[in-house]
């Protein structure tokens, strides 16, 4: 070994007085404060508005009280609607999720791997597209399915997708894929030897299923149920598209109605928002309690190869079950939108003369659409890029740093998950109206809103990769003498690359398709695409809407493809 007479590190006396690494602390504190301000500032104003009982045009409020909440019982019908839709949708979504998770993890269904990949697609189709498509398929008069039904000789409509059950159905189709991911994770993490032990002792398959399997997966399924229910309570787009035209309101669409009507009833809307927030917060809290405090050892962090049951020819039936779900949630909606978008007037039996591409040319030539598209892509790009830096640092601070208060930070960062985006946007609207910087009605407020509401998404995605990295990989760099920035650049960032790429894509897609926050916060000169699609649905034709929705889907898909190709190439060149 080479000898070296120089000291290996700077002389001790000059640095001994400096406690900790200042760069890390400075950056950490700045990021934490920024995130906390983004989250807490609007929440504060939401609460302020909810308790404001003075003249709503005077700010700050003249008087505080509970009057706004006292009005809520007048809207008990809306509460019941919300509850009914959410319960029905949760039950359906759980059935979809549980059945398909069981089929794909525990049986020898054909094309298992492909089906499992496809199960992520409904998430990308989004409830809004699903609702637009199902409106075309299942509205009582003109819905394609009901047209076919009548053509077959029936008098009545087969079903009505604009009613509560229809809305719940559409919501469940898309939340079903979330339930699937959660429940199949539980099933996959169950040690198969627990079941084998039961059978070796002499229990039958059925007995094993009832006494061992179900109790073991029950906490995981319950957790999924609560999570899905909370999501359903706060969901907005399906109820907006399907319900509001015939005056069927749930709490989120009612809030939107109260804010956007003239004159707006902001304090009442805020009180509704706060109530919804309180319920969702309790749900999420319960969910975290159930999943965190689980004493069952089913989730051991290890991935087991679950025992696969040979179900004989029944496997084709099970395959059909999965296929039907995917057709209902992905292929049928997309095909419907495509089918409708190339007709002058959408009908299930088009004449050749009815076929046209004019909706596409209209959509692409409309100035409003083009600027909205440009704005959406710009915002998506900025949100995703700034977002991965912000959430990457936050995830690192929460998981790895020794900074004080990082547990509190985690709660703050995960906060937006418990607030429907529409409600959050309401708080932001209220907050930024009085903020000295003129960001209200510009793209800036949308950027801030997106960055805030997608904090949990980014932090969760990156944390998921971060916790799998052996901590000593970073510690070793520390011991080798590398500074915090140097370690971040040479060790942490390269190792986190898959997580950062995934987070970028998720945030980008989520931003471009964001509806709940955008619809409240966009101004006349800062239109974005998804609310523009909804506007087109209400004020123009559903054919034009279908064309716009498909254009959005194609553009988002193209950007994802380009990003993935570029990042792969960059990885290959070691950049």
């Amino acid at each position, binding site marked *: 070994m*080479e000898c070296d007479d120089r000291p290996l590190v700077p002389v001790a006396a000059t640095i001994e007085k400096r406690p900790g690494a200042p760069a890390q602390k400075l950056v950490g504190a700045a990021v934490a404060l920024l995130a906390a301000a983004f989250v807490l500032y609007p929440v504060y104003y939401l609460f302020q508005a909810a308790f404001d009982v003075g003249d709503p045009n005077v700010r700050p409020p003249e008087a505080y009280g509970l009057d706004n909440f006292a009005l809520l019982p007048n809207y008990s019908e809306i509460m019941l609607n919300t509850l009914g839709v959410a319960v029905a949708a949760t039950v359906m979504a759980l059935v979809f999720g549980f059945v398909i998770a069981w089929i794909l993890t525990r049986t020898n269904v054909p094309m298992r791997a492909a089906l499992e990949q496809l199960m992520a697609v409904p998430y990308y189709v989004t409830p809004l597209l699903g609702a637009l498509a199902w409106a075309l398929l299942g509205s009582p008069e003109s819905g394609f399915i009901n047209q076919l039904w009548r053509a077959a000789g029936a008098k009545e409509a087969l079903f009505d997708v604009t009613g509560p059950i229809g809305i719940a159905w559409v919501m469940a189709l898309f939340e079903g894929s979330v339930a699937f991911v959660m429940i199949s994770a539980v099933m996959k993490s169950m040690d198969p030897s627990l079941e084998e032990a039961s059978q070796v002792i002499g229990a039958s398959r059925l007995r094993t299923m009832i006494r061992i399997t179900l109790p073991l997966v029950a906490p995981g399924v319950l957790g999924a149920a609560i999570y899905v229910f909370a999501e359903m309570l706060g969901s907005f787009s399906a109820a907006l598209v399907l319900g509001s035209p015939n005056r069927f309101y749930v709490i989120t669409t009612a809030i939107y109605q109260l804010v956007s009507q003239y004159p707006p009833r902001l304090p009442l809307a805020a009180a509704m928002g706060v109530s919804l927030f309180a319920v969702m917060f309790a749900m999420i809290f319960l969910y975290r309690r159930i999943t965190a405090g689980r004493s069952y050892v089913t989730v051991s962090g290890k991935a087991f190869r679950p025992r696969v049951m040979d179900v004989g020819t029944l496997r084709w039936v099970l395959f059909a079950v999965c296929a039907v779900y995917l057709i209902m949630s992905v292929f049928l909606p997309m095909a419907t939108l495509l089918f409708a978008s190339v007709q002058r007037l959408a009908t299930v039996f088009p004449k050749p003369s009815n076929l046209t591409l004019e909706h596409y040319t209209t959509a692409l030539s409309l100035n409003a659409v083009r600027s909205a598209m440009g704005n959406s892509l710009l915002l998506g790009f900025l949100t995703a890029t700034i977002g991965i830096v912000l959430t990457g640092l936050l995830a690192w601070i929460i998981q790895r740093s020794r900074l004080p208060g990082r547990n509190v930070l985690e709660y703050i960062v995960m906060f937006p998950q418990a607030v429907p985006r529409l409600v959050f946007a309401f708080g932001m609207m209220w907050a930024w109206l009085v903020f000295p910087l003129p960001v209200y009605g510009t793209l800036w407020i949308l950027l801030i809103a997106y960055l805030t509401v997608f904090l949990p998404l980014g932090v969760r995605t990156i944390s998921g990769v971060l916790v799998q990295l052996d901590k*000593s990989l970073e510690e070793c760099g520390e011991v080798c003498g590398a500074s915090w920035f140097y370690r971040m650049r040479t060790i942490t960032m390269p190792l986190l690359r898959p997580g950062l790429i995934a987070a970028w894509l998720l945030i980008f897609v989520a931003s471009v398709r964001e509806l709940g926050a955008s619809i409240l916060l966009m101004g006349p000169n800062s239109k974005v695409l998804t609310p523009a699609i909804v506007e087109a649905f209400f004020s123009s034709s559903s054919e034009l809407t279908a064309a716009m929705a498909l254009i959005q889907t194609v553009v988002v898909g193209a950007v994802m493809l380009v990003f993935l190709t570029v990042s792969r190439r960059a990885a290959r060149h070691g950049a």
Partner: protein
Amino acid sequence: MLASPHIEVTDLVIRYGNIAAVGPISFAAEAGKQLTLLGPSGCGKTTTLRAVAGLEQPVSGRIRIGDRTMFDGKAGINMPTEQRGLSMVFQSYAIWPHMTVFDNVAYGLRVRGKSAGEVKELVGHALDLVQMSAYGGRSASQLSGGQQQRVALARACAFSPTVLLFDEPLSNLDAKLRGDMRIELRELQHRLGVTSLYVTHDLEEALAMSDTILVMKGGQIEQAGPPAEIYNFPRTEFVADFVGSANLIRGRVRGDLATGDAIAVETRGGQIVYGTAHGRATAGEACLSVRAVHFSLGRERPAGERNIWQAAVHRSVFLGDLTQVHVTWGDREVVVRQSGMQLWEDAQPVWLSVDPRHCVLLEPN
């Protein structure tokens, strides 16, 4: 070669929340020597090591390396890990999977701003040292466990650190490789003359490699000393048991039979066992520790007067290099390990004997 500094830890206390994990403990590692922290899992040995590295923050106490203070609870000094100028081999090896072997080993040199030429030369030296020169261009994710271990070692040594920390570096290797690496590591340590702190739960590893061993239990030091001292003269029941299984013989001290360091203990069954006090104070009740290998068994009564008893074989178990014989002696059972292949039948009467020098008095609990 830069002179290796000594490490001095004084009244160190480490807590996790309200739970005291370590301390207060004090110890010193001599310059250029290896000090081993030995103990069962959860005894605080790794936590102590990580505190020296700066990866855990102690509550109070002082850590000094050479004449530099790394941590001082009172003065509020806590030097960041990267400025402590030491090096460490991790239990998981922590080989960076996104870099080549060369880049892994070069890391510490590049951090120190060495020129490309120097980096190349020093990495070459370090890889030679662990016989991995042929693997420089290999991606780190293509290495076997043993190879990763060597790369981790080369990386830790490449920038000529004067202090090396080892956190159970051999525990993930299979038994054969572990035996080889033990000797290699010891030689390397001698050749480089670095001061090392080594953490392990493996007795043989500790005995084979250390200049000094600290046996830890529940965050406290049970005994400190050179390997032979620890093995031959365990201080407490815990050390006697943990450092190679020992037979513990309890009884009443017979002051009338004692002469100087030689003592005698009468068991409840009435047998007189002669032993050595090793300078420790004798009290009314005493406990003697006898290593399983120090007992002898024979069909004939051996010559001599002291520490010879009649007993019976309870069961004998063939272990390969050794035969372990469980012997019923009065109302207790003792475990005897013998080299060779002499097999004993169950219930066979035998003469059990032991040299009084090997019956070591333990300190009272």
